[in-house]
C-alpha cells in the first residue's frame, strides 16, 4: 500500500518536473551568456496556448510542440532585442514579456478554453525495462516521451556548456564580455542564440503542459511555474545537472500538493512549492556558495563595446 503510493508519487514527480526541467535548462543557457530572462512564465504560457491551438486545429500534437517551441523562441527574441540591442533593464523587460505573454495567451486562447483535445501526445510504457522492480514502475510505465527527451537533454546541455569550445564561448560572454569580444567572439550573437535557446525550451515546456501532461487549455495554467524556474536556476548554480535534481524536487512538491489534499487544505498545500523555493534559496545562501552563489559575472549587464 505505502509502496504503491511512493512509487506512484515518484512516477508522477517525473511528469510534473519535466516542464520545470525543460525551462530551467533554457534559462541556465540564457543566464550563462549574461541575459536574465524573467519572461519564462510568459514564454511558457505562449507555448502552451499555441501548442494547444495547433494540435486542436491540425490534429497533430507533435506539430503543436514544434509551434510551441517557435512561439517561445519568437517571444524570447523580443526580450533579446530590448535587453541586448536596446540595452534596456533586463528585469523590467522580462516582466513585460510575462505580462504580454499572459495577456496574448488569454486573448487568443479564449476560444479554446474548455475544449477537449482528441490528438494528444500519449504516454508510453517501455517494454522489458518496465519489469525492473520499483524502478520500472517509476521510470518506464505510463510516462510521456517528452519526459525522456528532457532527461536526455540534461547531460547533452551540460556537456556542451562545460566540455566544448562552444560552452567556453557562452560562459566567457557571460563572465567577461569585453574580453570575449576582444578575442573575436560575437557577444551579441552568442547572447541572442542563448536567449533563443531559453525561449524555445520554455515554449516546449508550455506545450508539454497543454498537450501531454494534462491535455487542456485554461488561461493562466502555468500558475507561477515560470517563476519557480527562475528560482531553480539560482538553486542549480547555473548547472544543468543540478537543474535536473532541483526540477524533480520541485516537481515532487507540486505533485504532493495534490496528493496530500485529503489531509491538508489545498490552498495551504499550494503554498508549499513557493515557500520551499524561498527556503531553498536561504539554505544555499547560508552554505559555502555565499555572496554571488556562482552567478555569471556579467549577468544583467548589457554589453556596450568600448565600455568596461
Amino acid at each position, binding site marked *: 500500500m505505502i509502496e504503491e503510493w511512493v512509487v506512484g508519487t515518484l512516477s508522477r514527480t517525473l511528469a510534473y518536473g519535466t516542464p520545470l526541467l525543460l525551462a530551467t535548462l533554457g534559462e541556465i543557457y540564457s543566464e550563462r551568456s549574461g541575459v536574465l530572462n*524573467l519572461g519564462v512564465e*510568459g514564454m511558457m504560457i505562449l507555448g502552451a496556448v499555441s501548442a494547444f491551438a495547433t494540435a486542436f486545429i491540425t490534429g497533430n500534437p507533435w506539430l503543436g510542440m514544434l509551434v510551441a517551441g517557435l512561439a517561445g523562441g519568437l517571444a524570447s527574441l*523580443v526580450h533579446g*532585442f*530590448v535587453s541586448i540591442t*536596446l*540595452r*534596456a*533593464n533586463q*528585469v*523590467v*523587460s522580462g*516582466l*513585460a*514579456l*510575462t*505580462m*504580454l*505573454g*499572459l*495577456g*496574448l*495567451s*488569454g*486573448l*487568443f486562447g*479564449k476560444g479554446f478554453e474548455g475544449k477537449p483535445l482528441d490528438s494528444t501526445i500519449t504516454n508510453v510504457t517501455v517494454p522489458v525495462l518496465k519489469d525492473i522492480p520499483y524502478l520500472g514502475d517509476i521510470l518506464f510505465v505510463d510516462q510521456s516521451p517528452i519526459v525522456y527527451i528532457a532527461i536526455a537533454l540534461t547531460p547533452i546541455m551540460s556537456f556542451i556548456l562545460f566540455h566544448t569550445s562552444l560552452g567556453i564561448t557562452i560562459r566567457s560572454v557571460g563572465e567577461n564580455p569585453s574580453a570575449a569580444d576582444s578575442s573575436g567572439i560575437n557577444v551579441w550573437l552568442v547572447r541572442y542564440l542563448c536567449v533563443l535557446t531559453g525561449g524555445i525550451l520554455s515554449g516546449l515546456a508550455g506545450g508539454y503542459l497543454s498537450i501531454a501532461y494534462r491535455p487542456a487549455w485554461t*488561461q493562466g495554467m502555468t500558475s*507561477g511555474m515560470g*517563476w519557480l524556474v*527562475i*528560482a531553480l536556476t*539560482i538553486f542549480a548554480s547555473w548547472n544543468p545537472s543540478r537543474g535536473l535534481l532541483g526540477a524533480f524536487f520541485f516537481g515532487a512538491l507540486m505533485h504532493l500538493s495534490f496528493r496530500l489534499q485529503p489531509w491538508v*487544505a489545498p*490552498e*495551504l498545500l*499550494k*503554498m508549499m512549492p*513557493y*515557500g520551499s*523555493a*524561498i527556503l531553498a*534559496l*536561504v539554505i544555499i*545562501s*547560508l552554505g559555502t556558495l*555565499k*555572496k554571488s*552563489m556562482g552567478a555569471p559575472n556579467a549577468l544583467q549587464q548589457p554589453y556596450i563595446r568600448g565600455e568596461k
Partner: protein
Amino acid sequence: MKDRLPFKITKRKNPSGFAVITVSFLALLGAFIVASIVFWAYGANPIQAYKALFSGAFGGLYEISETVRRATPLLLAGIGLVIAFKAKFWNIGAEGQLLLGAIAASWVALFSPVPGPLMIPAMFFFGFLAGAAWGLIPAFLKSKLGINDVITTLMMNYIAINLVLFLVQGPWKGEQQWGFPYTDKFPASAQLPTIGNTNVHWTTVLVGVIAAFAVYFIINRTTPGFEIKVLGSNPAAGRFAGMSYVKTTLFVMTISGGLAGMAGVGEVAGIHHMLRNPSELSLGYGYTAIIVAWLARKNPIAVILTSLFFGAIFAGGDAIKVSLGLPFQITDVFNGLILFFLIGSELLMSYKIEWRQS
C-alpha cells in the same frame, strides 16, 4: 557621409525634462500602434476599440469615476514601488502586500474588538503593518543574506494569493454567503464612504495623495531619503560613508509594502466590503503598479498622473470587454506593450538630435 546629414546625433549625460516627456509620449504611441495590430488580429476594428476605450475611461462622469476608482490602488502601490526602485530594491511583490493589507483590514472589520468610530483608522493602520511585514521578509532576506529580491517578492505573491483563498474557503468563510467563498459583509462602520453613486472611496484617494507628497518629502528632504538615493545609485560609496544598507532596505520596504497594504485596505473597505477571491480583489494592480512607477520616472508626485493613466486603461478595458467582446486580458496586453516600449525607448533619451545650421 555622416557630415552630410542635416542633423547630428550626440550623447548626453542627463536627459532633459522635455526629452523624457517626448520619448515617454512616443513610447505610449508605439505601444498603442502595436496594440491596434493585436486588436485587428483578434478581429476587432482598432479605431472602434480605441473609441470604446476612450469613452469607457472619460466618456462621462461615471466613466471618469471608474477611472479614478481603478487608479486608487495603483496610486498607493505605485508610490511604494517608486521608493523601492529608488533604492534599487526590485519589489515585484506589491500584489501580495496589497492582499495582506486586505486580509488585515478584514480581520479588523470582522473579528477585532475595535469600536466602530476607530474602525477605519485601525483598518488602514493594520493594513499598513501587514503589507509592511510581508515586504520586510524579502527585504531582510536580500539585505542580510543576499537572496534575489525579484524571486522572493514574487513567491510571496503566490503565497499571499493562496492565503486569501484559504481564509475565504476555510476559517473565515461567511455564514450569510450561501456557501460562496466570501467572508461575511463588513459592518457599516468598516465601509468607506464613496462619492455619490460612484465607487470612488475618497478617503483612500486622499491617503494616496498625501502619501505621494510625503514620500517626495522623504526622498528629497530627509537623511534617510538621501541614503536611499546614494545606496540606490552607488552602494559602495554609501557603505564607505557609513550608511547601513540593511537599515535602509528595511526602511524602504516598510514604506513600500505598507502603502501597497493600504491599497488593499481601500479595495476591501471601499469596494467589496468583504474578503473574497484574490482575482476579484485585485486585477493585478500590484503588477501594473510597476509600470505606473516606471512611467512616473520614479517621481512619487508624477505617480498621481500615471496611476490615472493606467486607471483609464483598466476602466476603458472594462468597456471594450463589454462592447467588443474582448477578454479582460486585453489590459495585460496593453501593460506588457507599454512597459516594453517605455524601457526600449530609454536609450533614445540619452541622445540628442542637433539640427545643423544651413
